[in-house]
């Protein structure tokens, strides 16, 4: 029961925050954060000589912050557009992770088993302690979302107006990316590094095709994310050899294709 409750709550929060990634034209941000987690996890195994979920989380969070800092630094360069910056960070961290994994293979070959769970997710590898952590953090994120929602809508729609009218614009941005970073880190064992952005982005793309206002968009994207995660976890936990991440992404992908054919408005996203 706990696993379903935690995962559904997490999916709901990921969809709500993911909607803003799409509307702030930062669709790849979850991917960037996800890929920055890859070397972090391997480094945590190498340095602590264990596969402690806690250390993985700490390292992942620090690396996500580093990726985010590099992203903001590179944004100042007028020659680089958003996509190029994200591509640089994404491939850079992936390269570092690949290098670290070869070191891990050479030095601690006994710890290499189960590392693939980091790439594609495996819900059965999550302990009850980790599930409680996911549950509590998702609840806190949901509460923060309640207060942040209005400002995130304003900043996504018209960032110039938002910056002029609201003195708290920098604080809102900081909280948003702080929570997003944590959510991406938490999603490692569920969907995996490679597929994490799909959980944040696809629900919004599905929902956009049926929504007449932002509240409807939130409802439909949350439903799509929760249903896909429920099915993914159900199949994965009953057929142990199937990784959770790809299942969730395939289900979301099928929803997206179906939505494309039965949508009520033309695709603009």
């Amino acid at each position: 029961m706990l696993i379903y409750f935690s995962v559904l709550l997490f999916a709901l929060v990921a969809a709500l925050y993911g909607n803003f990634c799409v509307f702030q034209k930062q669709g790849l941000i979850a991917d960037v954060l996800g890929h920055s987690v890859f070397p972090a996890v391997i480094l945590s195994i190498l340095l602590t000589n264990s596969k402690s979920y806690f250390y993985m989380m700490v390292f992942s969070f620090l690396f996500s912050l580093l990726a985010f800092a590099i992203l903001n630094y590179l944004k100042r360069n007028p020659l680089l557009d958003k996509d190029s910056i994200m591509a640089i960070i994404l491939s850079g961290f992936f390269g570092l992770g690949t290098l670290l994994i070869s070191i891990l293979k050479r030095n601690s070959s006994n710890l290499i088993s189960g590392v693939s769970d980091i790439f594609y997710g495996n819900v059965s590898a999550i302990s009850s302690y980790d599930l409680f952590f996911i549950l509590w953090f998702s609840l806190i994120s949901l509460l923060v979302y309640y207060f942040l929602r209005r400002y995130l809508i304003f900043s996504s729609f018209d960032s110039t107006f938002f910056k002029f009218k609201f003195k708290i614009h920098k604080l809102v941005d900081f909280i948003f990316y702080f929570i997003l970073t944590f959510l991406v880190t938490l999603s490692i064992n569920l969907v995996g590094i490679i597929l994490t952005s799909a959980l944040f982005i696809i629900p919004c793309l599905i929902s956009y095709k049926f929504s007449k206002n932002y509240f409807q968009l939130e409802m439909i994207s949350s439903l799509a994310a929760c249903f896909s995660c429920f099915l993914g976890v159900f199949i994965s936990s009953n057929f142990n050899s199937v990784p959770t991440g790809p299942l969730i992404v395939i289900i979301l992908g099928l929803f997206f294709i179906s939505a494309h054919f039965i949508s009520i408005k033309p695709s603009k996203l």
Partner: protein
Amino acid sequence: MKIVVSNLSVSYQNLLVLNQVNFNIPINTITAIVGPNGAGKSTLLKAKLGLTNFNGNISFFGKNLKESRSKISFMSQYQEVDWNFPMTVFDLVLMGRAARLKFWQSYSQEDLEFTEKTLKEVGMWSKKDSLISNLSGGQKQKVFLARSLVSNPDILFLDEPLAGIDYKSMQDIFKILKVQKEQGKTIVVVHHNIEDISKYFDYIVVVNKKIIDFGPVEDVIKRRSISKAFNS
């Protein structure tokens, strides 16, 4: 009582965009900021609003920006906004009331009534439940203008509010601005069309990296400063 800009300079990455700009705008007027593309019109507006770093001083009827912020409203450029955002016309206009609220507060009945009144003033009440993506160019600008008016500001800054709209919508928008002026508001508009300038504006600021001229519209036209700015 004036908006006073003194010794204002703005540069981006060592490139001087505006150099030692000085002018003032009297209260209760409609003023156009005109100049060729890349002259620094929008930069000047953004500097006034504190949206870009600058050197120099700007005061609004004797007060600085921090003290005046709640009395100023701003309409962004049409292209700077995500019109595909799933939002209704009513919600967009209501956004203009949000700066008064604390983060834990919801909109009051007064906010909703004010939004309704403003939408009726700009003739967009019948579209209140429409998605903003379904509006025409002129309707979008009217709704956008309504968002700036709904906070009942004393000063309105509008960045190219007439860009990409038809003649009828342009006339409607100027009618709304004239009513606002009669109610005592000071309106500053970044404007690109110089042909009809004497018809709608009281004052003009002509800019091309620096101030070419400013003053009452008839005087500036007599001095042929606009053509100088466009040809320099």
